[in-house]
């Protein structure tokens, strides 16, 4: 069975703060660079984007859409000299809705993804939603509509249509967000809660974090890029196998036996997020949730309230001390974008010409980025660059340095220590592979993933 990668949450150029060249051709070009076969249209409630979709895409019987003409994608990514094809790319109708409303005496701000099984349904939904608020000024419309009522409208539009709560742990704009979310899914969707079968973990969390809470065990956890520009496509994504169709994807997410299977997600390291741990930026203090409890939420340096992070919020709601992978929940793999890996090795910024040159060379030698990161054998990669191969090997095995973000300070993932890089620069090859003595350490932000007994050991 053929595997395919799906990125189900992206935006068009009609959303705020997005790249102005986000057209269907640009998206298709980047999808080819990354190795994505199923892409969300994004923003289908926006009148101009819908016009664009209807002009450039055609409906297929699978409920998905494809590009009408086979365009020259090369001009979309001028730095790339290889071939790009959109032959196998399909689009799924999807839009994100931002709901801001008051419920239970609290202000709620929740983002939801809405999926529609064909153009006709999407248009019917848009015309109804148009009565609720303004769809013209933003590809991701902001409405005062209760998320439950939004779900009801979606279900009334078409029996195949569905809703997935977006990036559920983002503090400001999500279902469980600490600032304006809910403590239980049922408080949000009430009588319609059973219509929700998948949740988007978002960049700020990975499945392991969600496995701390048994209430989430029966949801399929998906991951998407939420890209606002082409190069961010697929930074998180989903792996399916089998038939590529709307009903297939839907059933797979419902974990029904069907022609399509959900195999798991491709994840970002959540530690990179700038609100991963609790902490205080001014005092340089970062703590794991259990340690925060010990200091009663106060900064050990200045005594003021610590800024609470995403992990802490999960611990607040969860009922397990250690993540437990539920049965039927597939594995996931944590990746670092190839451009960042290259940037670390080359020692220049991710946008520097030197970095881009190597990135481009790798794509031409080994194919799409997600293949390089996930599949290409390390031995193959060694032919091109030893250090790159080592970097990717470490990443695949999770042997990375995680400098967790906190209180607005971005986290960082690196594959090498500064000394290692220094040695490499001077031509000395350090011990690669299993013999590596590199200690991946007892870093703050990592302990919670380990079993309690082991955790106790390190603390003593």
């Amino acid at each position: 069975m053929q595997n395919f990668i799906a990125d189900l949450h992206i935006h068009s150029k009609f959303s705020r703060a997005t790249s102005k060249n986000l057209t269907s051709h640009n998206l298709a070009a980047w999808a080819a660079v990354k190795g994505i076969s199923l892409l969300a249209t994004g923003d289908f409630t926006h009148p101009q984007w819908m016009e664009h979709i209807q002009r450039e895409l055609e409906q297929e019987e699978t409920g998905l859409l494809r590009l009408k003409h086979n365009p020259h994608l090369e001009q979309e990514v001028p730095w790339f000299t290889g071939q790009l094809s959109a032959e196998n790319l399909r689009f799924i109708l999807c839009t994100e809705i931002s709901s801001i409303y008051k419920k239970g005496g609290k202000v709620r701000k929740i983002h939801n993804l809405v999926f529609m099984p064909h153009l006709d349904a999407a248009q019917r939904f848009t015309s109804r939603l148009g009565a609720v608020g303004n769809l013209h000024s933003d590809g991701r419309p902001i409405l005062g509509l209760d998320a439950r009522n939004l779900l009801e409208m979606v279900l009334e539009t078409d029996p195949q249509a569905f809703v997935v709560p977006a990036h559920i742990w983002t503090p400001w704009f999500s279902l469980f967000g600490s600032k304006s979310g809910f403590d239980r899914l049922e408080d949000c969707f009430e009588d319609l809660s059973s219509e929700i079968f998948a949740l988007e973990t978002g960049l700020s969390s990975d499945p392991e974090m969600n496995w701390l809470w048994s209430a989430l065990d029966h949801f399929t956890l998906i991951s998407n890029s939420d890209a606002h520009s082409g190069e961010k496509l697929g930074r998180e994504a989903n792996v399916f196998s089998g038939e590529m169709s709307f009903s297939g994807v839907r059933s797979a997410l419902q974990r029904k036996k069907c022609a399509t299977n959900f195999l798991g997600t491709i994840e970002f390291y959540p530690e990179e997020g700038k609100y991963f741990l609790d902490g205080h930026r001014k005092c340089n203090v970062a703590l794991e949730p259990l340690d925060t409890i010990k200091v009663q939420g106060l900064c050990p340096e200045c005594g003021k309230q610590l800024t609470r992070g995403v992990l802490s919020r999960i611990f607040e709601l969860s009922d397990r001390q250690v993540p437990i992978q539920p049965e039927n929940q597939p594995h996931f793999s944590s990746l670092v974008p190839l451009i960042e890996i290259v940037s670390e090795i080359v020692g220049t910024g991710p946008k520097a010409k030197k970095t881009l040159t190597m990135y481009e060379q790798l794509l031409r030698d080994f194919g799409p980025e997600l293949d390089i990161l996930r599949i290409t054998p390390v031995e193959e990669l060694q032919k091109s660059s030893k250090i790159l191969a080592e970097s990717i090997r470490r990443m695949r095995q999770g042997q990375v340095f995680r400098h967790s973000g906190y209180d607005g300070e971005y986290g960082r993932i690196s594959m090498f220590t500064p000394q290692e890089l220094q040695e490499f620069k001077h031509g000395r090859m350090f011990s690669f592979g299993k013999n590596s003595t590199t200690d991946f350490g007892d870093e703050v932000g990592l302990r919670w993933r380990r079993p309690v007994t082991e955790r106790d050991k390190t603390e003593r």
Partner: protein
Amino acid sequence: MGRVRYLLDQGIDPQGMVILTFTRKAARELKERLEQSWPQGVALPKVDTIHALALEYWTQVMGEAPTILSEESARKLFAVANPQLHGKALKLAWDEQALARERGLRIPNSLTQNFLDYKARFNLVDYTDLLEFWMEHVELGQYVTTYNHVLVDEVQDLSLLQLHLVTSLAGKTGHGFFAIGDPNQAIYAFRGAVHDIETMLLQQWPETKRIHLLDNYRSSKGILDLSMELFSPRPMLVAHVEQRAVLALLKAQNALQEAQWIGTKILELLGGTSHWQADHGQEGALSPGDIAVLVRLKALIPPLAKILHEHGIPVSVPEEEPFFVDARIALILRIANHVLGLPDTPGEDIPSCPEHIVEKGPLAMAVYFSATPPFDELFWKSSVFSDLVKAFQSFGGWKGLMNMVRLETDLCAIRSKAQKVQIMTLHGAKGLEFDTVFLPGLEEGILPFAGIDMLLGKLAEDGIPDMDEERRLFYVGLTRAKHRLFMSHCVHRKIFGRSLKLGLSSFVRQLPQDVLQKSTFKQHVHRSERQLSLF
């Protein structure tokens, strides 16, 4: 609320209570609040507007609901009944007789008589008729009150007719009558509200107990202190909300700047509507429904709404009712439904109309029914009917039209569920409260309003506005806010097609200036959006 609770605790049967509010919105809100704290299994007391109760009474006596004229249709009918009147004279005559009727004169002059004859011919009533009808029955002893406790909200805005009616509901002795009002919030004199209602009540029932409510539980101290400065002698209200108030005054160069400032502030208060705003803005913890923008004139609403829309803020503006809500249009739709056997046919008896006529559409029905009650010649010329004709054509017949009506009705329901920033007139905001209130357009001539003629640069013919009432209106606006008050005015403003340079409102100048955070706009502020981050 407190009084209802007290009565209930005293063992008074809620069936004998009636609570009268000034607007339907206020009635709805009060009902919701009562429901939240009401003991299970006990019936709620009646909560409604006096007009709604009058309608109920009419329906009960006559056996069927009357066809009620909207204010617009009532005016038109009045014009048709008195064809000799035109233009300004017509408007004045209408206002005059409407006012007289509210003051209790049933048929103040022959013009009203003509109007009345016309209504009688077509079996139509206006809102005042409902009250008059009820009042008449009270006077003739045909209606005997069933209420032991009559509670009236916003009593300061009752007209004489309404006052008579509510006091007679309470019976001769006035026992159990409880009215609450704020004379500083009297803003309906132009509709015949009684000037000094307290004295009148005391004259009627000398034993009436007066209770001065000096405690305010809505507004922060800062807002209340500020508002009281408008009056002399200064009222002595005591604020019980300690939270610090935000009091701001902006001077903008033009209305666009003013609107953009409001938009930016609202985004801050909502905590931004996208990630980058949330990260960079300050703590925002309001929902759109906590915020209102209140203006003196309807004409100020559309430009404001447009800019807020562009900011991606969910806003609601007062909407005109769609044509199919009109009672007689609804009747036509029912006839068509019935005759054509379309779904949704109610079993009531409705005027019959041959199928071939219905099939031809509303215009053919107009010819057929002509002046058969409840229809009249005027109705066929009304804007609602011409809307129906247009919709019939554009939706390709009855079926399409009915589908559209069903869809629209459904959409209205969805629309009412959504929470939005409300832009409305000061009059419309009566009895409501919001965490944050914006008061734009505080310019001399707009508030206090100097009359349309003045703003158009013409000789004022439409009467000199009542400065005291305008002042109270401003007071109502200020006291709608619980915590934050953002006032603003413009150096230049385009209104009614004219560009005006009006100074800052004298009412604002009268406020203590040192407590206001002032800011002035000189140039356009350009905002650039940043790539967002998701953590």
